[in-house]
């Protein structure tokens, strides 16, 4: 047990909508991949998400966005993380969004990766493991 580092992930659900099917399936899959997954619950503001990420000292924040507000939410969370000295926390996400938006968010550095519907959940877990290992290397 000694010296073991566990990957901690905050799965967060911004927006007023209640579509949490994807977030919960992913949370459960990451648990089964050996991670500690903190679930924020529904209706979270960017401020609440960032506070939780910091207090829980997570390695990764995953945002599940189905409200169409991706272009405002990802940059806002990224900025708040940076402002709070948490540049090392990896921000990624998933949800229903057009490819252009995904490209834009990855290009401007708001999101390290975004998974759209149809992605096998195992792929998400593997991506996180590699991203955290890459960061800590």
């Amino acid at each position, binding site marked *: 047990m000694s010296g073991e580092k566990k990957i901690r992930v905050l799965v967060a659900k911004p927006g007023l909508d209640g579509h949490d099917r994807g977030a919960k399936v992913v949370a459960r899959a990451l648990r089964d991949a050996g991670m500690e997954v903190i*679930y924020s619950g529904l209706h979270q503001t960017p401020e609440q998400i960032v506070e939780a990420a910091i207090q829980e000292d997570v390695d990764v924040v995953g945002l599940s966005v189905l409200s169409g507000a991706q272009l405002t939410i990802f940059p806002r969370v990224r900025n708040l993380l940076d402002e709070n000295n948490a540049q090392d926390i990896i921000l990624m996400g998933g949800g229903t969004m057009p490819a252009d938006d995904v490209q834009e968010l990855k290009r401007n550095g708001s999101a390290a990766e975004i998974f759209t519907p149809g992605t096998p959940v195992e792929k998400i877990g593997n991506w996180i493991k590699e991203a955290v290992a890459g960061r800590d290397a």
Partner: protein
Amino acid sequence: MEKYVQGILAGDKRSTAKIISLVENDGPEKKRVLSQLYPHTGKAYIIGVTGSPGAGKSSLTDCLTKQIRKQGLTVGIIAVDPSSPFTGGALLGDRIRMQDHALDKGVFIRSMGTRGSLGGLARATKEVVRVLDAYGSDVVIVETVGVGQSELDIMDVADTTLVVLTPGAGDHVQTIKAGIMEIADIFVVNKADLDGADKVKTEVEGMLDLSCHGNGWRPPVLLTITRTEQGITDLIDAINRHKAHLESTGSFQQARKERLRTEVLEVVEHVLRARIHKSVEASQDIARLVAKVENREVDPYVAAEEIISVGI
């Protein structure tokens, strides 16, 4: 790490969170950091919240936090959920109930997985309490796993332990029999608007009538409804009364002394055990002796005495 220690003492959340991770992961600098923080601990009052699944522990913690904050005190919360014994992963969902406090500068919430520990708390809970204490939390609330097993570890951590019951859970009488009678300083019958709350209260009072209260404290049985925050101020009063009782009778210092003594001995045991394991694995002599035991040449006691006499 130095800057994080300074950060904690200056009340910085990010530093506190980082040090908690260090403690949880049993990192190499843990011992040094904890001893630097130790002089700054011992001020926080520690409340334990335990009870069966679905009793409303997180909601109760949420309500308590709200009331305590109204008194101007700061709160640290440790919420423990079970880790999977197979994958080591965990789903930590207690925060959901407490998100109203997410932006409150006076509240720090940390979710922990049990990581193999069986007594209802995470292995590092005691140490994380200390970090939150050093960080400046006036009150630290520790919420146990609540999977219905005997969760006695909380006794070694909390000054006041609340046992949360709920009507209609069906298991309350068994739970009481299973030994939580001993750990409760206060009983809380939550969801008291459901049928049968009074019955639960009566049952618990009945059991309390039968047990002795050596230290002069008879645990009160309170009714709460977290949804409407009914009974929460009474609960706070009861906690304060328990605290006053502990202080006036000297049991507070006594109990804390007792816990520290236990902790020191635990650490000694832990270190010795680790040393023994290490030398057992390394020593040829021991391997030879164990082989003899296997061949029925000597019995385990004789072999053990020989090992100890040789010195390890």
